[in-house]
């Protein structure tokens, strides 16, 4: 069997098929969720090379698929991403089915994930920018509604990613030339500058971050947060792939200094902006910027532990924001305008929702016994050795977020005359319970959850030595 055929081409084909079947939406939903989990199982039980396979990996797959002289190569890192992305898609689609929500994630989510994975697996690298652009276009259709009052955020997202693409393509051209003949200092500066510009646009570094809170605010959380959670993750992993692939780039000190600066800017601006938000959706948008900044800062540590830490941050991002997204959906069902003040007395109205929202927020700020704690604590320890001043900046920013969460904590726990309860069914309570358990267990026994995510960077042999 051929790995790219299974995890990239087949999902793309299935997505097209589900587009035809979409009249029977909930059947499509079930098929998509089922297919995602089957793809995850196949990835777990398959081996890319017979020498290093474990006893449970009984299916042998060919990792390379050639097409017009180019190839899609599924390596260890991409395989881990397959497991993560399809698990996330499966969980998200199941939740859509569970809450009976009609969304364009069925079936565009499958195509979107397949394209994100192909950006990570395509050889030569320079094609990744083009494929990412197609993924962006699909996600714009997935997130927007043509009848919506405004789609400014989605348009800005399209603009920034389209502007970023040429820079990365040109950098790819420079660096690909360097594979044949050594790159001189001037060329390296040019390539780094171009690559840096491209990634600044893609990651939403200040001042190009405006699309993130706008999308979170203007579009439905069930689609917008799916996109906002996953897209920066794939861009960061793509960045790691570039670093691993080009020796000049990963040995160039300025690259890491730039990453540190960009990461810090994202963390500081995201935290400060989040603090002053009144709209809950926008606040989540800014928190997502902080989360991306933390991943960049981890990469900038430039040691094995730094790269592994970036993968741990991916786990805490996916788990915390998954919980927050579905809580947001439950709350939006009750309140039309999701202001932070709507959270008043939430704990009294629905203890499950109140507890889950507090837990997910504390997880984002890296409080003990939550999924964010192991990564955040290890980050402080490692980053302080790199730059004490910058580490102080990060601590202050996380402190600002913590104050914001404490403010929300008081709101959630406060007594208010409005005794209106939130209608949450028993099965929804069970769903929330499951999410709370996930966050608590990953904080209490991180060794079970985190090492699997390290597989993202373990495949990059030049980064993780």
């Amino acid at each position: 069997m051929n790995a790219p055929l299974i995890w990239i081409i087949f999902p793309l084909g299935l997505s097209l098929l589900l587009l035809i079947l979409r009249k029977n939406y909930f059947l499509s939903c079930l098929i998509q969720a089922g297919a995602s989990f089957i793809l995850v199982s196949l990835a777990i039980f398959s081996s890319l090379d017979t020498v290093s396979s474990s006893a449970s990996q009984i299916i042998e797959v060919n990792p390379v698929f050639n097409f017009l002289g180019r190839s899609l190569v599924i390596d260890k890192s991409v395989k881990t991403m397959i497991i993560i992305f399809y698990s996330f898609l499966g969980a998200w689609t199941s939740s859509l089915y569970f809450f009976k929500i009609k969304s364009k994630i069925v079936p565009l989510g499958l195509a979107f994930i397949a394209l994100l994975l192909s950006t990570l697996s395509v050889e030569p690298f320079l094609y990744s920018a083009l494929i990412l652009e197609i993924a962006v276009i699909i996600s714009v259709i997935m997130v927007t509604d043509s009848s919506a009052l405004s789609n400014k955020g989605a348009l800005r997202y399209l603009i920034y990613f389209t502007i970023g693409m040429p820079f990365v393509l040109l950098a790819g051209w420079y660096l690909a030339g360097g594979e044949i003949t050594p790159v001189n200092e001037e060329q390296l500066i040019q390539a780094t500058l171009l690559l840096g510009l491209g990634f600044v646009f893609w990651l939403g570094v200040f001042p190009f971050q405006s699309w993130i809170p706008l999308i979170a605010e203007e579009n439905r959380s069930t689609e917008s947060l799916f996109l906002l959670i996953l897209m920066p993750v794939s861009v960061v992993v793509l960045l790691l792939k570039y670093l691993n692939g080009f020796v000049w780039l990963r040995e160039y000190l300025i690259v890491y200094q730039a990453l540190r600066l960009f990461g810090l800017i994202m963390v500081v601006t995201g935290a400060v902006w989040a603090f002053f938000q009144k709209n809950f959706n926008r606040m989540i948008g800014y928190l997502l910027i902080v989360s991306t900044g933390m991943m960049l800062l981890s990469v900038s540590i430039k040691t094995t532990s730094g790269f592994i830490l970036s993968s741990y941050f991916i786990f805490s991002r996916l788990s915390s924001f998954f919980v927050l997204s579905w809580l947001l959906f439950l709350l939006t069902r009750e309140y039309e305008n999701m202001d932070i003040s709507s959270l008043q007395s939430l704990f009294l109205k629905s203890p499950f929702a109140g507890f889950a929202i507090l837990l997910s927020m504390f997880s984002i700020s890296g409080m003990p016994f939550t999924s964010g704690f192991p990564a955040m604590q290890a980050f402080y320890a490692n980053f302080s050795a790199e730059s004490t001043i910058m580490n102080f900046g990060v601590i202050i920013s996380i402190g600002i977020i913590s104050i914001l969460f404490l403010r929300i904590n008081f709101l959630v726990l406060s007594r208010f005359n409005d005794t209106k309860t939130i209608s949450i069914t028993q099965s929804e309570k069970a769903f929330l319970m499951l999410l709370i358990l996930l966050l608590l267990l990953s904080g209490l026994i991180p060794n079970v959850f985190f090492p699997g995510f390290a597989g993202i960077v373990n495949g990059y042999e030049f980064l993780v030595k």
Partner: protein
Amino acid sequence: MFLNTGLIAFSILATGVILLLEDWRGRLASVSIIQLIGFILIVQIWPIALASVKLISGLMGIALLSTTFLAKVREKGETLITSSRVFRLMMGAFGWIIVTATVQRLNAWLPISYTNLFIGMVFFFSGILYISLRTSTLDTILGLLVFLEGFDVIYSSLEGSALVTGIYGIVIISICLTGSYLEGGFNFGGSE
């Protein structure tokens, strides 16, 4: 020599016109002319079959957008006051001056023909300027098309891959398709 000078003059004229025109038909026509200029430049270095892919995909995208707008009854937009037109033209001129001043230095970075680099940069800059001066969905898409055409002219001079051309064509049509979708040209089947 004459052809190249003429192309440079036409590229400046086309980008100037697109900045000033208010009628959507005129703007779409200007973008088509920009695509045509791009094609004439690329066909000088690429086989005609490959260069045609770029022209056809671009024109297909514009046709898609035109169909969307023809089907809609467009309310007449506000007529631009003269000072606004002057401002836009001055911004465009500012861009052309920057390109003229920097293109020699850029040529050391990107070893391609001067004409291609100049026109590519004019489109590149005008695309960004156009996006920043207008806010509607159609204008965003048209701005992106101009911007991408500029990049295409430069990148085609560096890299001659058939697969890149194919994917690039898909990107151009998909962007226009997205524009058409956002303008209500077609329905996905309803999400809510």
